[in-house]
């Protein structure tokens, strides 16, 4: 159990700045997901906490104590990586016992047995205990790796893309397994991934990392509904938020390329609480309008005409790509919607759900206000 803080961290590798001015606060018992693309600095952050790297500047605190001088072993964190590093000639049981065997730990034999049994039960690998690890499937191996972390009862679990090497169906089921494991243990988890679905579905909090900087920290709902900038907006959500260039004119959204227009709720002053009112001051300023695909609707009398460019069929729903001139945007519609490619349709958006971004900086007006 531990509360982790990173204060003003920067990390340089030669001339390359991997992390800059990084502040993170991970509460005790929290499932925190660090989300970012390859090279964003996720793994570096994790390794700093684990004690495998030293920060160029800044401090790492575990439960309020600056751990700069602590080695990796003293920090008592457990690492689970994408590649399962199990001992192939050992059985699952031997692999689980291994972290408890070193002389310095001196865990009594009865306790070792007990901890292994519990870990195996939690992870539903009891039936595999006497099997050699080279005879396990990928999902089973990853469960054993996690088991080996659990038996030690570490203060913090650090997980670096542990699900990325598994196939889609298995990833889906291990997501819930991991989340329920964390709730059961009440442990602090720092989970690193490039997969926004993993971040959304598991995280109590998400930190979005871009080029070594934290762009936004918040609950999945905050990140999804109120992204700080166009980077977060287009990174989180599948399909991502539609981002369309335009400007406000007399309280209507006027899109630049084709001059199509849609109503904007901010103008009426109602609906969207925090949204800045689109008074005269906003008029003409270059903006980016953000709207999630589920907030774009097809309706026969709707204001804008578009062509259906593509239909992605998910069974439960369809994701349409609509084309207006050179602009394309996505709309999520019910599965029973019968549309064909190159069919003309009319669409509207939910004006309450529109997010405005400044065209130049990409920052949401709600966040810059």
């Amino acid at each position, binding site marked *: 159990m531990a509360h982790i803080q990173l204060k003003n961290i920067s990390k340089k590798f030669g001339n390359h700045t991997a992390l800059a001015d990084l502040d993170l606060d991970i509460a005790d018992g929290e499932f925190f997901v660090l989300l970012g693309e390859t090279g964003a600095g996720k793994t570096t952050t994790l390794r700093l906490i684990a004690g495998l790297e030293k920060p160029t500047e800044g401090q790492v605190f575990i439960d309020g104590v600056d751990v700069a001088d602590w080695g990796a072993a003293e920090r008592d964190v457990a690492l689970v990586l994408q590649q399962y590093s199990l001992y192939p000639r050992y059985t699952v049981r031997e692999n689980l016992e291994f972290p408890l065997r070193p002389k310095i730990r001196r865990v009594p034999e009865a306790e070792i047995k007990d901890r292994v049994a519990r870990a195996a039960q939690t992870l539903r690998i009891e039936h595999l205990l006497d099997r050699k690890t080279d005879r396990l499937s990928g999902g089973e191996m990853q469960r054993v790796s996690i088991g080996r972390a659990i038996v030690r009862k570490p203060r913090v679990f650090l997980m670096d893309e542990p699900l990325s090497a598994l196939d889609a169906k298995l990833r889906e089921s291990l997501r819930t397994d991991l989340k329920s494991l964390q709730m059961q243990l009440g442990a602090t988890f720092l989970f690193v991934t490039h997969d926004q679905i993993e971040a959304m579905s598991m995280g109590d909090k998400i930190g979005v990392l871009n080029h070594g900087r934290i762009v936004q920290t918040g609950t999945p709902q905050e990140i*999804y509904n109120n992204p700080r900038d166009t980077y977060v907006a287009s990174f989180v959500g599948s399909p991502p938020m539609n981002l369309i260039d335009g400007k406000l004119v007399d309280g209507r959204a006027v899109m630049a390329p084709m001059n199509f227009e849609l109503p904007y709720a901010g103008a009426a002053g109602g609906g969207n609480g925090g949204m800045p009112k689109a008074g005269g001051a906003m008029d003409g300023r270059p903006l980016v309008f953000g709207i999630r695909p589920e907030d774009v609707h097809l309706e026969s009398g709707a204001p804008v005409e578009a062509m259906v460019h593509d239909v992605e069929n998910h069974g439960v729903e369809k994701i349409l790509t609509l084309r207006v001139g050179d602009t394309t945007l996505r709309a999520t519609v019910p599965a029973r919607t019968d549309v064909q*490619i190159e069919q003309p349709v009319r669409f509207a958006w939910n004006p309450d759900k529109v997010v405005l971004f400044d065209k130049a900086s990409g920052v949401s007006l709600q966040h810059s206000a």
Partner: protein
Amino acid sequence: MTQIELRGVQKYFGAVQVIKNLNLAIADNEFIVLLGQSGCGKTTTLRAVAGLETIDEGDILIDGKPVQNLKAADRDIALVFQSFSLYPHMSVYENIAFPLRATRKSKAEIDTEVRSIAKTLQITHLLGLKPSALSGGDMQRVAIGRALVRRPKALLMDEPIGALDAKLREEMRAEIKRLHVRQGSTTIYVTHDQIEAMSLADRIVIMHEGVLQQVGTPDEVYSRPANLFVAQFVGSPVMNVAEAAVAGDTDSATVKLKGADTGFEFPQALLSKLNGHASGGKLALGIRPEGVIVSHDKAQGFLPVEAQIIEPLGSYDIVDLKVGSSILRARTRSGFVGGAGAKVFARIDPEQAHFFDTASGQSLGVRL
């Protein structure tokens, strides 16, 4: 105008049977997707149609004529693979024109055909480049152009966009579909990606361990899966499947999941539709997450359940509900269920329920 038919096709690799008694009729202009996991026999089937594999038994007919003894070159079928297989020393133009060399067409005719196909694929500006200068998507466009330029009877594609990154894959998928809508040629397309299959196919052919599981439109395959394999292969998150006991009297029926105290209410008609299965063999209830209806109020037909884990996915949530010893995953509006441990009520939408014979895995075809 090309119809393709497979009749009683059997294929062995040594002692392993990779295609088991496959029967399939493909209509002219149809877009057929062979869907399955790796090793299910889908690629072998495609290669058998193309003439790159022999078959051990059965017939392959193109426009009614058996072709199983014809060489690949004589079947007039074009193939596109995942790896692009372009000639690196030739320009894009020469690559596309290559298949026409042997056709005794005049230079002017060849030029017209190459430019027309390039225009369709929107690669006219690339004609002078060497393949090494192209992106992955453009290389695959050229490969498709080369396949189509000689106007083959059918176009066969084996995971043509599997090697591309996610965004490009989506773009190319849309292009392939649009090309098919415009050109309309009989197409067989192999993939392991169910979204690709659902989005491209007129009909999907699902294979598992060499055996054809179901042939149907995307809607049929999703809404009326023939067996448990199809039910759980298509759709994400996967369909809930739980062992169930059906009981009832003259007025109503209930479906009780293993370990549960009370059963979900169903129309009485369920009993007659299940025939003898209700009392005898073991049953499994299949229900997709959108068919589990969650409510905050105790309404008629709703059972009290506890939420275990909530996965917020942005536009909707997937909520794990504990019912007896089973977990049912429900799809709800974003934020509908407050948090883990919340007490809510759930019912099963009978219209979206499936019943399977546990032993055989076959759907009992119940429709309510």
